[in-house]
């Protein structure tokens, strides 16, 4: 064994002290990753778990899709105009959320607040459109306890809606934090997580838009 093995410890801040070429932190021999990477990485893992939870609701929807129990089917219920408006609003909010990230990068309090406010208003519009759709269904006697199909529909889409609502609460808290504490490092990391969450909800919506609304609006004879 040569000398490197004799070195028992070293200060991580100084790097591996000449015994090896400098390494990337967080990978292999490089020592712990920086905080920003750890926070982002952990949140990605959370998002993966969240997507798995959604996939369970998607699976339940697929299994129960035809279990209408004599009640209304997807084809009779869905109004694609409402869905189109919801999709447009949500995708626009993703754009403004991206603008907020840029504003945070430039440390602009004014534009951060404006971009987040617009994001929040668009998100709120999305929720209101969803509530209007849901109350419309219930008024037509197509509430979640009407049939297994409607139970799974309300749960899947409603779970996404609850996620967006929680994200709105988070967004308001984020705005207050930026306002009160400024662009402090830990708050910027939280904002990183928030924007990841917001974009992930968009991706889930794209799946709902396609698999629930577009497929559901097809005439029954076209479905397998």
């Amino acid at each position: 064994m040569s000398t490197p093995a004799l070195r028992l410890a070293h200060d991580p801040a100084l790097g591996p002290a000449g015994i090896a070429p400098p390494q990337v932190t967080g990978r292999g021999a490089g020592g712990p990753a920086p905080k920003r990477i750890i926070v982002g990485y952990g949140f990605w893992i959370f998002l993966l778990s969240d997507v798995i939870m959604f996939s369970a609701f998607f699976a339940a929807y697929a299994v129960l899709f035809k279990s209408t129990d004599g009640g209304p089917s997807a084809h009779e219920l869905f109004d694609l105009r409402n869905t189109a408006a919801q999709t447009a609003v949500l995708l626009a909010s993703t754009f403004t959320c991206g603008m907020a990230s840029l504003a945070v990068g430039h440390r602009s309090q004014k534009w951060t607040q404006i971009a987040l406010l617009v994001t929040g208003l668009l998100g709120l519009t999305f929720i209101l459109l969803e509530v209007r759709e849901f109350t419309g269904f219930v008024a037509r006697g197509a509430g979640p306890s009407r049939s297994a199909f409607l139970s799974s529909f309300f749960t899947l889409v409603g779970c996404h809606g609850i996620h967006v609502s929680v994200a709105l609460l988070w967004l308001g808290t984020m705005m207050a934090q930026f306002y009160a504490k400024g662009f402090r490092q830990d708050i910027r990391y939280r904002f990183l997580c928030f924007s990841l969450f917001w974009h992930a909800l968009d991706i889930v919506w794209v799946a709902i838009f396609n698999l629930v609304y577009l497929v559901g609006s097809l005439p029954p004879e076209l479905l397998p």
Partner: protein
Amino acid sequence: MLGKLNWQAIPFDQPIPLAAGAVVVLALAALLVWLAAKGYMPYLWREWITSVDHKRIGIMYCLLAGVMLLRGFIDALMMRSQQALAFHAAGYLPPEHYNQIFSAHGTIMIFFMAMPFVIGLMNFAMPLQLGVRDVAFPTLNSVSFWLTAAGALLVNISLVVGEFARTGWLPFPPLSELTYSPGVGVDYYLWAIQISGIGTLMTGINFVTTILKIRAPGMTYRRMSIFCWTTLAASLVIVAAFPILTATLAMLTLDRYSGFHFFTNEGGGNAMMFMNLIWAWGHPEVYILVLPAFGVFSEVVSTFCGKPLFGRRSMIVATMGICILSLCVWLHHFFTMGAGADVNAVFGIASMIIAVPTGVKIYNWLFTMYGARVRFSAAMLWSIGFMVTFILGGVTGVLLASPAADFVLHESLFQVAHFHNVIIGGVVFGVFAGYTYWFPKAFGFVLDERLGKAAFWCWLIGFYLAFMPLYVVGLEGMTRRMQHYDRPEWYPWLLVAAVGAFVILCGIALQIAQLWVSIRGRAQRRDLTGDPWDGRSLEWATTSPPPMFNFAVLPDVVSDEPYWSIKQQARAQAQLVTPEPEYTSIEVPRNSATGFVTAFLAVVTGFSLIWHIWWLVILGLVGAYATFVAFAWRDHTEIEIPAEEVARIDRANRAARAAALREGATR
């Protein structure tokens, strides 16, 4: 005002739960009074309840698991004695109470004994073995623990306020639907498991991030200890499987609370979808439990054989193979559903294939022992007991994986014997091995070996006496969960099984005695070197118990067995070869009451959801949000340990090690 809650919820007419509940409440009150009188409360609050240190949290997890083991074991004793008495008789437990007991036994043993115990060991040992100072998200770790404790508390509240589920450890619909289970029992189950399940999911996320992103310099994947590998595999399975549990329980909750039709008989619901969903979580769950136990055995066997683990790389491949296969076999829990011969055959073969990587592991442990000078300490005895017992459980598992055999043995006591065989022989022996092995690291003194070995023999003999008869009566056609029976050929076997349960009780009594004796005699049992077993991985490189920051400077890893190679070098040169490092101040996260407050609010919210006290639900949720905001608003999240303090602690550690080295050289 109080929803469904009224005085009828307290079972005044049932003396057993009422007396048991009264004893628990009195014991808790006495404990609190004693703590307050001794003035320990501020210490407990400061050093434990609000601690975000992974070692403290790990110890609290193990403590919770130990207490819940006692609770679950009392249920087991009641069941065994009921079946010993209920031949041509009613026994002493009425059916509705007996049903609650087997449901509570399974729920507690899996969710609040086995899970907290393995998570506790992972929490304690994994960051130390990686050579780092804490997990990725220390405060989240504390929240996870307290949420698990909140779930455990809810299950135990059900003992005296209301009732627990009578639907088994997994609430199969349609029995668990409101039509057939109108009481609050299933609701207790749902909210307790939902709350603790969220805690477990957060733990999984925390551990995956820690292992993949926070390791000491030089700690490449191939140099990670096997325990860290199995922790990684188990945590990945947690992240993949627990969200399915959350979703499934949410669906059943909606069925019960809002008249949805996921699993009902009416409205087009599909009860078999529950089976698929719950077992898509449930089967991976058993690997979440047993993989960390495999990791403990790998550490213990290698240490007490004084050899590197045989086939390290094949061990890693086998671990990750099990990690993936565990998610592909869930259907073998309901072959009798009638999915057809093709589907059953695919899942049967997939289930049998898991025996291959598991067999690889068994051979690796055996070959590590081959030719070694084995030290038969208590931890090693648990490991050997595991190898023998677990193989038996594995073989009956392969037998059950054959759909044809499963059709005969489904829901029989043969199956009950099988899963107790793998859970006790695998997980419980594993956590006891880990408890014995890491106890000196956690508390700075070793446990009494003689009592530990006696406890092991009681457990081993008791296990065989209690469960081998169940294989026999299972083959003779006895189904599980029978409150009484009239078949004379089963009776003697069930008497033997009851005797076995009482032999295990002796084992538990010996373990409590061991703890008592060891604490009383701790002055003579001190581990002064931090390395009582001549260990090989990094947790033995620091003091026992380790300082808050674990390592004064992060170790530089150069081999598969980092601490062993450090010792080899030092022994070869008969001196500590490193010069004293330059100490710098260390920042550690500040304590936080967030976890405790969140759990308190979770208990309040869960309890009021169970009893339909809606205003309190809203209050609890608002409180939870306020807690998060308060946490987010903190300005000082870390405290600094000055360099002089770090130096003082580390110099003492180096002096003790140098002394041990001199002693070793003269030996």
